């Protein structure tokens, strides 16, 4: 069943404004409205309505515009400051944490260094004593040299 050409023309007229139509449909619509006074009037009325819509001029009070402008820019500045503060805050906490860590670990480090030093001193003392022992055992008084004869086995 063929659709009513007038209905089709009116639908295409509106659809061209709503979402756009194909080139073939545009050609068909133009050829139809060229010969159909009613559909041409329909298109003309639609065009007048859209022109009327665009002719509306809503007035905005300058005072209202200023109030909105001030409120919004003020809010934007406050939000900006809050944002900057929130960016600084994690760094501040990190700094505090680092300081506490240093304060807490300093005595432990000092204690470790002290123990390490004591251990080194202990090792040095042992070494000195060993050297002294070795020196004492090697050095034989001259008067006793004769007693230390080779092959003297007692």
């Amino acid at each position, binding site marked *: 069943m063929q659709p009513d050409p007038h209905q089709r023309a009116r639908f295409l007229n509106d659809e061209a*404004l709503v979402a756009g139509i194909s080139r073939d449909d545009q050609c068909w619509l133009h050829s139809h409205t060229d010969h159909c006074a009613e559909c041409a009037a329909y298109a003309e009325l639609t065009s007048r309505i859209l022109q009327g819509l665009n002719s*509306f001029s809503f007035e905005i009070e300058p005072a209202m*515009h200023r109030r909105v402008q001030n409120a919004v*820019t003020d809010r934007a500045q406050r*939000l900006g400051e809050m944002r900057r503060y929130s960016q600084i805050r994690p760094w501040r906490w990190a700094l505090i944490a680092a300081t506490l860590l240093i304060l807490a670990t300093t005595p432990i480090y000092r204690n470790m260094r002290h123990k390490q030093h004591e251990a080194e001193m202990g090792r040095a003392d042992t070494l000195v004593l060993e050297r002294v022992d070795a020196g004492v055992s090697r050095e034989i008084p001259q008067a006793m040299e004769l007693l230390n004869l080779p092959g003297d086995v007692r």
Partner: protein
Amino acid sequence: MPFPDATETETQRIARGLHQNDAALIGEMVDRYQYRLVRYLLYLTGRREHVEDLVQETWVRVLTRAAQYQGRSRFEAWLFSIARNLAIDGLRQRQIFSLDDSPASVSNGNASATLPAPLHSSPFLAAARGEDALRLAAALELLDPKYREVLLLRFQEDLSLLEISKVVGLPVTTISSRIHRGLGLLRSHWKGGANAT
């Protein structure tokens, strides 16, 4: 701090400014979009009352939700969707609206409010210049806001059907049929007005 890129698009510039809470850019945006925002709210609500509050709330919401705007779509579509949600929330609080689709449509954010006809001092009559516009203003007052809204978004804001569907939260096919229906109703009201005079 990121530096502006020479190839940055306008929407990306807006997104960057919003993310940085750039007060100068916000001021520029208010200047640029104020008229369109007011007009959209007038078409949506059909009344001047509370428009200033809604406009202010919308901009504050733009600031607080700035992170959501990535500059991939037109700013005005995002702005209108925020304004729409606030207007519907406001109307819900004042309990002067009814739903035109289903009760679930509001709860899931796809609200489409049917507003009462303006009580007095129609913003459309006040905005009309010329005989045709006056007749059209009368027709707009009689028109359901759900049709007024899509007609404005399509023919004055020049948003695509997809953009309108995102603003309104309804499928493109529904938007298309609403625009067709809205145009048809305006033509009927217009002819009715012409016959009456």
